[in-house]
């Protein structure tokens, strides 16, 4: 009997390569004649290039060429180009130099004289909203279709400002109730809800921007051969990255060969194509040599993106039993130089975890002259959970309702409808996760410790619920059983550092009755054939591709049975698949998969991929066509359907000890329990849960951006100043568990896990620290100086809504 694969621990196929250093990342590929490119970055937050004198640089021996902004694609409006003559953030690439060694390229950059004209800049979105305040673009701070636009009119620039009256409220510490929002939605009647609430809490909250800082900077290398672009890139996805690169460079997808077997993390900053990918592609075409652009850690700070920060006002109304009955939420988002939209998800998730039934959501996202903002692991969700869960806990303290009880009474049930469109979900086991976590954490025992003071240490206990999207539908699976008898699963997904690259193939192995050693994962090189796949973002991969591979394997199984019946007699239903063979149920005649493969090739048609299903995506067709005739092909679209969104929930619990004399927080214990449907790979799930929670802890406790306000220049631009959490920042005592109830609307029952833990880790800490302090600081990161200052009753160093301070 073939081993059961789903729910077991199997070492990923790339483990040894990664540990031994044999894994090749984009920077490890060095074709002949390759040159190195180096970037010249903008020294100012907003400026215009008046003149570039590169004569000395181009005259240097070993310098091959220069690439300027006018040679790369650009679009009108606030759209990022890979090189620009009007940088909108300090650190934005202006031009690139190629030389035979990196040292020469760097020396050449220094030999270039650029005359930059400084322009006004803005770092804080509120400054941009203030009447008379600066705007990130010279043409304004909002790029949208005018209210009176006609059909076919494009977006235009305008100056979007709030009024003096709005700022009078803001400066007095209140939500600017009349301020115009760019996005908004309502449900129920929030004012009526507040009128009947037994408790109303109003807070101003700041969540600071943090850089992604994946361990691998986004180095890329590219060259052209026979009209095709060979792109060695650092990316989270694969098939979709190939499409993105083709689009960015303006060529057909099938003229791109994407090589990306490994990625040292992306966290949302490398979802598919990235702007730096364009530079080697375009430069190598220009100079006719392979170009390697190694992005340094310094550059990674800037072009590597960051999570947008939020400045938020919230008003929450509660009944005496702890139920939240109304939320008024207003978010100002720091859009960076090219805009961002985390606020939408934030609003929806707030509705999901508090189920208030009455809600008003408003948001503006303003351009600032800071590095581009991008999705970062749980965009919008991680922030809002980290920001609002302490408010819930505070309400519990004031209403004298236990914090876990507060969480449970407000958690969604399976029939929840939330967000602007009343979205529903395929499965919700949030309460089970909370209850299971409470037991694992010993909530009852820990509650007795809440607020306990021993010497200078105060204990705080926190609980939080963090949901995030965790699935999608409709992608294609593609696999071939070759005459060697093995199943080759062609993954179009990226190997972004999780294990979904191989785990999503397990359903296929199980359906085909194969042991894992009979399965080969084909990944990382688009020339080997990639089906239409999801992007590796939104934690959707496990869900989407267990389905896609399930569908393709089901297709293969059908064909195998048919071949067996045709070859050996009887009907397909008489046959069973196990251990690499197809044979009559109850024993009897059978064929090995190797034989099936050969038979498929002889039979042709749909069996070996010469005929393809009508409904697969057109992007899958070239890959399938290429593999036709190689064996028994399983190819199918995920038509399993489903209603509602797919969300995973993580319940986080934390116990902290806060030293009241120093402000230092020691995390004593952390528990994370998830409802992510069926658990495919337990050890991997644990790693994702811990990893995500730790990232959330860093977001809550240590990481931030800092700018000098006078020059608009960033300071936390080294790993040691950006302060991502280290090994000694996390508790030794960390536990995880999974509810494990299969999602009913997906064949394998598995949902994703990548993102929800971040909010859980962050919010468990922000709530635990608030519990220890007896007050909510409403700000991240909670570094010792901020905590101590509050405990000692000293004037805070900065305004309540200030960001980027340090």
């Amino acid at each position: 009997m073939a081993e059961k694969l789903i729910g077991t621990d199997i070492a990923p196929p790339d483990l040894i390569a990664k540990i031994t250093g044999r894994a090749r990342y984009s920077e490890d590929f060095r074709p002949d004649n390759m040159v190195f490119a180096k970037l010249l970055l903008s020294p100012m937050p907003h400026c215009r290039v008046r003149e570039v004198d590169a004569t000395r640089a181009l005259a240097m021996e070993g310098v091959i060429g220069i690439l300027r902004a006018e040679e790369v694609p650009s679009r009108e409006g606030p759209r990022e180009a890979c090189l620009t003559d009007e940088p909108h953030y300090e650190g934005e690439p202006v031009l690139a130099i190629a030389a035979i060694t990196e040292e020469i390229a760097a020396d050449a950059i220094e030999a270039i004289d650029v005359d930059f004209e400084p322009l006004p800049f803005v770092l804080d979105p509120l400054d941009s909203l203030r009447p008379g305040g600066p705007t990130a673009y010279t043409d304004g701070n909002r790029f949208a279709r005018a209210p009176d636009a006609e059909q076919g009119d494009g977006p235009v620039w305008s100056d979007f400002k709030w009024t003096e009256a709005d700022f009078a409220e803001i400066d007095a510490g209140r939500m600017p109730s009349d301020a115009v929002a760019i996005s908004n939605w309502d449900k129920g009647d929030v004012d009526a809800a507040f009128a009947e609430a037994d408790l109303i809490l109003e807070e101003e909250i700041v969540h600071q921007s943090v850089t992604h800082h994946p361990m691998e900077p986004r180095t890329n290398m590219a060259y052209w051969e026979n009209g095709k672009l060979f792109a060695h890139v650092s990316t989270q996805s694969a098939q979709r990255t190939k499409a993105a690169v083709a689009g960015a460079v303006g060529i057909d997808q099938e003229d791109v060969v994407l090589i990306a077997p490994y990625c040292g993390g992306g966290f949302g900053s490398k979802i598919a194509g990235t702007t730096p990918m364009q530079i080697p592609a375009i430069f190598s075409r220009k100079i006719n040599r392979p170009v390697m652009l190694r992005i340094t850690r310094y550059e990674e700070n800037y072009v590597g993106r960051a999570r947008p920060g939020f400045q938020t006002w919230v008003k929450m109304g509660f009944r005496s039993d702890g139920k939240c009955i109304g939320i008024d939420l207003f978010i100002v988002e720091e859009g960076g130089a090219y805009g961002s939209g985390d606020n939408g998800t934030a609003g929806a998730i707030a509705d999901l975890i508090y189920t208030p039934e009455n809600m008003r959501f408003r948001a503006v996202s303003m351009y600032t002259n800071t590095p581009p903002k991008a999705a970062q692991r749980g965009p919008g969700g991680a922030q809002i959970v980290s920001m609002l869960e302490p408010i819930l806990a505070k309400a519990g303290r004031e209403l004298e309702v236990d914090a876990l009880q507060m969480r449970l009474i407000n958690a969604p049930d399976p029939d929840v409808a939330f967000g602007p469109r009343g979205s529903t979900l395929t499965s919700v086991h949030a309460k089970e996760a909370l209850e299971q976590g409470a037991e694992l954490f010993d909530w009852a025992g820990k509650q007795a410790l809440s607020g306990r003071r021993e010497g200078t240490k105060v204990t705080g206990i926190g609980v939080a619920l963090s949901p995030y999207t965790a699935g999608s539908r409709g992608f294609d699976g593609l696999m071939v059983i070759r005459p060697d008898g093995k199943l080759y699963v062609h993954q179009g997904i990226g190997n972004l550092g999780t294990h979904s690259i191989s785990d999503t193939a397990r359903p296929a192995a199980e359906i085909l009755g194969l042991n894992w050693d009979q399965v080969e994962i084909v990944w990382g090189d688009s020339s080997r054939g990639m089906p239409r796949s999801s992007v590796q973002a939104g934690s959707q991969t496990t869900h989407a591709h267990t389905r896609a591979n399930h569908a393709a394997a089901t297709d293969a199984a059908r064909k195998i049975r048919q071949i067996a019946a045709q070859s050996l007699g009887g009907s397909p239903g008489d046959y069973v698949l196990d251990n690499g063979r197809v044979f009559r149920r109850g024993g009897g005649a059978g064929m090995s998969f190797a034989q099936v493969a050969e038979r498929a090739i002889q039979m042709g048609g749909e069996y070996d991929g010469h005929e393809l299903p009508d409904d697969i995506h057109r992007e899958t067709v070239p890959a399938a066509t290429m593999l036709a005739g190689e064996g028994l092909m399983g190819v199918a679209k995920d038509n399993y359907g489903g209603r509602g969104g797919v969300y995973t929930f993580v319940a986080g619990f934390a116990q902290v000890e806060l030293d009241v004399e120093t402000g230092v927080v020691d995390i004593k214990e952390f528990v994370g329990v998830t409802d992510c449907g069926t658990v495919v790979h337990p050890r991997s799930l644990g790693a994702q849960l811990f990893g995500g929670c730790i990232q959330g802890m860093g977001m809550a406790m240590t990481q931030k951006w800092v700018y000098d306000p006078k020059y608009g220049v960033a300071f936390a631009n080294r790993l040691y100043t950006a302060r991502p959490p280290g090994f000694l920042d996390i508790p030794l005592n960390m536990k995880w568990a999974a509810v494990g109830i299969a999602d009913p609307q997906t064949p394998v029952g598995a949902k994703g896990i990548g993102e929800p833990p971040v909010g859980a880790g962050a919010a468990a800490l922000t709530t635990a620290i608030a519990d220890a302090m007896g007050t909510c600081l409403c700000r991240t990161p909670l570094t010792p100086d901020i905590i101590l200052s509050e405990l000692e009753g000293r004037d805070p160093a900065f305004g309540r809504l200030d960001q980027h301070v340090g």
Partner: protein
Amino acid sequence: MDLWRRAADPWGQDVLIGVSWDLMWAAIWVAAAFLIGHFVWIKFRPSEAHEATEVPAGIPERIQRHSLASRVFHWTMSASMLVLLVTAFVPMLGLQFAWVEIHWIAGVVLTATIIYHIIHSIGWQDFWSMFQIGFSEGVAHLKHIMSPKAPAPKAGKYPFDHRMFHHANVVVGLGVIATGVLMMVRIDTPLWAPNPYMLADSTWGVVYVIHGLCGVSLILLTASHIYFALRPEKMWITWSMIRGWVDRDHYLAHHDPAKWVVTNGAAPPSVTEGTPRAAETAEAEGASPEARSASE
């Protein structure tokens, strides 16, 4: 030898930072060369004949050159100036100590004295005795330097070289003080916190360059001033900055009574009756009146 120090400002733009410390060394070397050169030159210069003039009537024995107020001003100003120079340059020469506070306090003192002096000289002193160019006198002075046979011009209260020295100090002094006052904005004092952004980086660079140029010029000016003040043939002037008066013989030897009018009858209040100081001082210096006057 560098003249300036430049740097990249926070936005990567090239700005001036200040003068190069090479200029300090240059000033020291030039001052040393000038002083030694002058000393040697004077030693080998033949003495010159001194024209006897008739003694007009009504010239008192002691003529007031500097009032008490002027002298207090001068010595306070020069003390603060010396402190400023020492605190400015000695650390760069190798002896390090906490100099900044002393420097700006001395600078405040200097500024106060100069403000006093400007008001006092305009309102209470003979402003034009100093504030003139006197071109023809200058030419005569120059000719006299070239050849001892050409007679030294008879000066008003302040001879040509004194006036030129003072003009140089006015320019350089006002330059260093004005820039120094601006720089006070960068100091953390009980009255205000530093605000370096009052001016742009490039503007501050210019401020520091002016301060530096004036400062190193002051090395030269101060060194030569002290040298000349200690020269035997000039000691009678130096004494006047201490005691307030010059004696009649020196007055008649070097000054034109028509230009420096002293016959208003009143004797300088600091003079006590009696002893003819001129002869005494001459004896003390051990030089003949002729030799002394020839050394101008």
